[in-house]
């Protein structure tokens, strides 16, 4: 078992992190389109996790069977499945792999639920260290406004309702996101995350992302797929 940072595999792994409403998924989608057009063998990791793990997670959430510990462990199981069956083989084959959210989401979310941060880092020690981990930094109010424009109604665990922060789902979500934001900020120096100012225009953010990606790909020409 290789630990975080010990994998030596030819592919490239780019991941995006940030709270809901930070715009990270949009940015990753734009990056994906560009890499494809440039002729790279790029895979947007769809989290094709095994139906078994997925079903268990779904059931646990639906029936609200999960405690912070089992919430954390079942997601780690799911992530292990993606890592073993999807991410590592793809990277070995030399692909550019893109992930919307990665282990840092679990660190932020589970620590906000009271799990021991050191234990969480050990739990995910099998994860491949990303080539670049982008963090989309956005003030809570901006993110909340973007979400409120786009959707209605939070799910139980999504809003952190299991923590009993508030009986109002909207208020609970807000308090939970504030905690998660704090956790992300702590992780920026710890994991050397690349911060993108998510209040900038979409085009400007994408420009920054692409510049950094290019630098990592020029060292690996063999990743290019001949059209």
């Amino acid at each position, binding site marked *: 078992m290789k630990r975080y940072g010990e994998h030596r595999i030819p592919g490239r792994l780019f991941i995006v992190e940030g709270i809901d409403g930070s715009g990270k998924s949009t940015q990753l989608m734009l990056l994906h389109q560009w890499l494809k057009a440039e002729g790279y063998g790029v895979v947007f990791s769809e989290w094709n996790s095994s139906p078994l793990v997925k079903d268990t997670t779904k059931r646990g959430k639906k029936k609200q069977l999960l405690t912070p510990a089992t919430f954390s462990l079942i997601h780690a199981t799911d992530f292990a499945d993606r890592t073993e069956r999807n991410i590592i083989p793809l990277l070995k084959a030399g692909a550019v792999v893109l992930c919307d959210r990665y282990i840092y989401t679990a660190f932020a979310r589970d620590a906000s*639920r*009271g799990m021991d941060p050191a234990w969480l880092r050990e739990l995910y020690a*099998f994860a491949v260290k990303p080539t670049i981990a982008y963090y989309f930094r956005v003030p809570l109010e901006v993110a909340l406004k973007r979400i409120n424009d786009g959707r209605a109604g939070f799910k139980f665990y999504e809003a952190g309702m299991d923590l009993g922060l508030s009986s109002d789902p909207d208020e609970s979500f807000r308090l939970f996101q504030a905690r998660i934001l704090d956790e992300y900020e702590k992780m920026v120096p710890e994991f050397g995350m690349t911060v993108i100012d998510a209040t900038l225009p979409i085009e400007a953010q994408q420009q920054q992302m692409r510049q950094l990606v290019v630098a990592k790909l020029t060292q690996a020409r063999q990743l290019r797929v001949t059209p």
Partner: protein
Amino acid sequence: MKETYGAMLPDELLDDLVGKLIVIEGTDGVGRSTQIHLLKEWLEQQGHAVLDTGLSRSGLVGKSIKRAKEGHTLGRITLSLFYTTDFADRLENEIIPALRAGFVVLTDRYIYSLIARAMVRGLDPAWVRNIHRFALKPDAIFYLRIGVDELIPRVVFTRGFDYWESGMDFYSTEDMYDSFRRYQTALLERFDQLAEEFQFQVIDARREPRVIFEQLREGILRVLTNRAGVETARAAVAAPPGTSAVHAIVPLPAPAPAGEKDEPVTVPDSEDSAEDHRKRASRTR
């Protein structure tokens, strides 16, 4: 006062866990379930409320693990974490509440089996230990120890080799017998290592079930009646693993409970099929 192996769960309170946590460890086919069945009956006769639990019996993931193993679809890290999830679910939803209510909790295997298996499958030994640090330290760990040569006939003449207990998921080029032998040998080595590290009370599982039962009963009585006794037992078991240390310190009381004398040498003891055991065990009575 109970404690964990170092990691606390959120808002976890341990000072009101007045029950006793007793672990029965041992490899496949060694007779754990038979003993747990006998112990439960005996403890209940003594007036103790008993919870018996074991691997992959959680409401959250127990069934999924069984299905996963039928399909052989999970990677080794994934399978290992699936078991840990199952364990956490049972710890929080069964074991801790039962201990709080003053039960004697008898568990058929504990984190040590998970650690041993994961190590044999090549996972990082430090990692496997660390992820289980939220587990409660048991009041006693009894390890039913057997050699691979004694184990094989029991398995062959009862239920045959099991795919997973033969390590066929990673020794796939060999036949079941070779694979079983190699896997169980590796597993027993790990267990011997863990016996020292976690202070198991080692019991010679080659002996008759009745004798083993007497020894377990003695050990458990000590846990129930005398806290200091546990420490003594642990100190005594610091002897090298495999030397039947428990024999030396546990005076055997005479008679076995009536009706148990003709208990067969082993009740087939396949991994994770506690219900089968109970059925078989009740048939033999």
